[in-house]
């Protein structure tokens, strides 16, 4: 376990004996925001030593799909509380979805979210821009202005609502090519899901809850991959939840379509059987599916058909869950359980190793978001965004003890493997001994710098 020795104030940290990506133990010397050295038996005078025998070192996790709720629903979550949760969960960057109030559909709002993230200092907050004005699905938002803003937006999404108009989706896909953007689609055919409450199938038939059929997701994905191919653009599919969607994405990739796909931790584990309790903590969009879908999603993540794990962290105030199922809000928290759930469902099942874990939780999502200083190898000269995990730890989920304001964890009461021990964000320890340390402090002039996304081509 990590033991913190005296902090000599040099800002240097020597991580001793960590299994980098699960490999043989090595040391990492972190200094001045970068990994200064990687090797055996490193020494550095004055550096704070972190004994990391038994721990796994990973590139800081990058969430492609986070709801931080601010501005507008600070009763559900704030950038401060959401990014504390992110840091504790192993993340060094999160993409903040656009469905805030006001919607992040202008340069002003995305710059506000960027500034809130930098003020908090726990992780890199990368604002996602809305595709359409007010998420209304009628008119393109000023995508270029958001791309050129200090927030350097590259991911655009109406997440929560599907860009269902095929012409509008085509135009959005075409337009974001001008600045190497990507459209992240919430694939949900709206007419097939009017009033939908849960996966349509055997369980919904018994429970009398309006069904959300798999075809409503699959038909939109099929259309979108064909559109992306037609206009030669980049498509990201949010929260893939069905075995049929996996097949369509696999087919599209085999045809060379530039599509990436995401799966949430909860869709890797939980099924619609949980709805039998009528407990709205299990209500989420897209809904929990069947065990056959869960198995297909795991296989797809392991074979690369699905590129990334995105939490779809969606905190809600308790009154939005302590009610009838049909009245309840959709969504689950995820930032503080994602690592453990992926370890449980993918690593402990033998489907993946820690190097694969780093790919799906860090390298690939950073690439989708065009983040140049995230998802990097843990090598000398690279930015020091590092997650240290104790894979042997076991802990029981207690939502009341989480940093997120949301208490809506579907994993409450479950024992999970894997615990984040320490986090380095830009070389600064944001988490030590499994607890929040101090945030990274941007210098005033740095806080105004543009984001680190690559410039347009």
């Amino acid at each position: 376990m990590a033991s913190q020795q005296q902090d000599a104030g040099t800002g240097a940290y020597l991580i001793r004996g960590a299994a980098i990506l699960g490999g043989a133990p090595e040391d990492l010397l972190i200094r001045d925001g970068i990994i200064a050295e990687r090797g055996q038996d490193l020494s550095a005078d004055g550096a704070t030593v972190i004994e990391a025998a038994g721990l796994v070192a990973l590139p800081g996790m990058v969430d492609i799909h986070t709801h931080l709720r601010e501005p507008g629903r600070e009763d559900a979550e704030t950038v401060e509380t959401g990014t504390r949760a992110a840091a504790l969960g192993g993340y060094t960057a999160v993409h903040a979805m656009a469905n805030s109030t006001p919607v992040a559909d202008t340069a002003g709002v995305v710059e506000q979210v960027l500034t809130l993230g930098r003020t908090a200092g726990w992780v890199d907050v990368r604002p996602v821009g809305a595709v359409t004005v007010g998420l209304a699905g009628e008119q393109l938002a000023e995508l270029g202005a958001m791309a050129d803003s200090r927030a350097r937006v590259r991911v655009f999404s109406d997440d929560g609502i599907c860009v269902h108009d095929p012409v509008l989706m085509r135009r959005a896909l075409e337009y974001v090519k001008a600045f190497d953007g990507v459209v992240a689609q919430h694939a949900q055919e709206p007419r097939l899901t009017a009033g939908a409450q849960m996966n349509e199938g055997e369980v919904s038939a018994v429970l009398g809850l309006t069904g959300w059929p798999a075809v409503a997701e699959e038909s939109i994905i099929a259309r979108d991959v064909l559109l992306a191919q037609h206009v030669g653009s980049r498509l990201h599919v949010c929260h893939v939840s069905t075995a049929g969607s996996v097949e369509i994405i696999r087919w599209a990739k085999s045809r060379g379509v530039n599509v990436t796909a995401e799966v949430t931790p909860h869709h890797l584990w939980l099924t619609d059987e949980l709805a039998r309790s009528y407990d709205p903590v299990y209500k989420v969009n897209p809904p929990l599916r069947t065990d056959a879908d869960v198995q297909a999603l795991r296989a797809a993540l392991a074979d690369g058909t699905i590129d990334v794990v995105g939490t779809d962290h969606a905190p809600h105030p308790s009154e939005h869950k302590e009610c009838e199922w049909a009245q309840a809000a959709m969504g689950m928290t995820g930032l503080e359980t994602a690592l453990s759930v992926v370890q449980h469902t993918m690593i402990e099942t033998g489907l993946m190793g820690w190097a694969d874990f780093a790919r799906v939780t860090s390298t690939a999502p950073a690439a989708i978001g065009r983040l140049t200083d995230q998802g990097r190898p843990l090598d000398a000269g690279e930015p020091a965004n590092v997650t240290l995990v104790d894979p042997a730890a076991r802990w029981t989920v207690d939502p009341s003890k989480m940093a997120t304001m949301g208490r809506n964890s579907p994993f409450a009461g479950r024992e999970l493997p894997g615990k984040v021990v320490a986090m380095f964000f830009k070389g600064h320890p944001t988490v030590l001994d499994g607890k929040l340390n101090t945030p990274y402090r941007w210098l005033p002039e740095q806080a105004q710098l543009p984001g680190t996304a690559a410039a347009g081509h």
Partner: protein
Amino acid sequence: MKHLLSTEDLSLSNAVRILDTAEEMAAVGEREVKKLPTLRGRTVVNLFFEDSTRTRISFEAAAKRLSADVINFSAKGSSVSKGESLKDTAQTLSAMGADAVVIRHWASGAPHRLAATDWIDAAVINAGDGTHEHPTQALLDAFTMRRHWSKLAGTPSAGADLTGMRVAIAGDVLHSRVARSNVWLLRTLGAEVTLVAPPTLLPIGVEKWPCSVSYDLDATLARGVDAMMMLRVQGERMNASFFPTTREYSRRWGFDDNRLRALDTLGFKDTIIMHPGPMNRGLEISSAAADSPRSTVLAQVRNGVSIRMAALYLLLSGDTREPAVRTNSTSSPSAHATKESH
């Protein structure tokens, strides 16, 4: 039994116990003084989030015949319509000392939420939740069928189940809590159930239910039916393209005069015609069928009070023991596919 939430998880022994108790309660209803002192001093709240005069007065009559105090709480014109949550409503009723809550709610699962949370400690009776279940309706239907079935066999109702009885249920199964509760309960009681509906009004997944499914009402009748239950069909379903017109629905799936005559032609002289009410005469059932001697519509209403008396009595009288499973039946609750997948 602490609550009566669904028939899906109702054991054979408990189902038969409710039916047998209802027989005793029915005897009370035939006396000059239709009242028992059993639940004196107990408070039953009828908590109705959805209009249903028929079900509410049936529960009210049942509770009053058992001498319980009855409070009717309608969501309309109350604090509920001002945005008070189910949780607050339940806690309010709990604080007022409700012993039983009879809940009708438009949301599937609302009674389960009351029973599963610590919002209220009272016994919960599901009086119909969304498109999920309506267990007392199914019990009163089964009670009506059992009396008919026993009379034909020349044996007493008490203790009997419905082994061998052929029941067809026709109509909007997709949106019907009555159909769901009936399918589970009739399965448990040993009846053979056939659902008859347009494919658009059957839920995806119905093939896993413990019953047969048909799109053809005439073929179902021709194979032989002992009880024909018609479900209410709402005309506005037509606007959502569940079927083309009400006339086409009525021709294909309504119990019209031709089908009433067909029962005679086919020689099914003992087949009864059931409907949970309220009826759409001329849509799912013709007036001649509804008013024929085969119709049990009014008997169902009458039996509803007895069933609800039995449910209140069994939940509130303190005898919550599970009786021994009877051995005179070939059916078993564990033989049902969806139960096993719990």
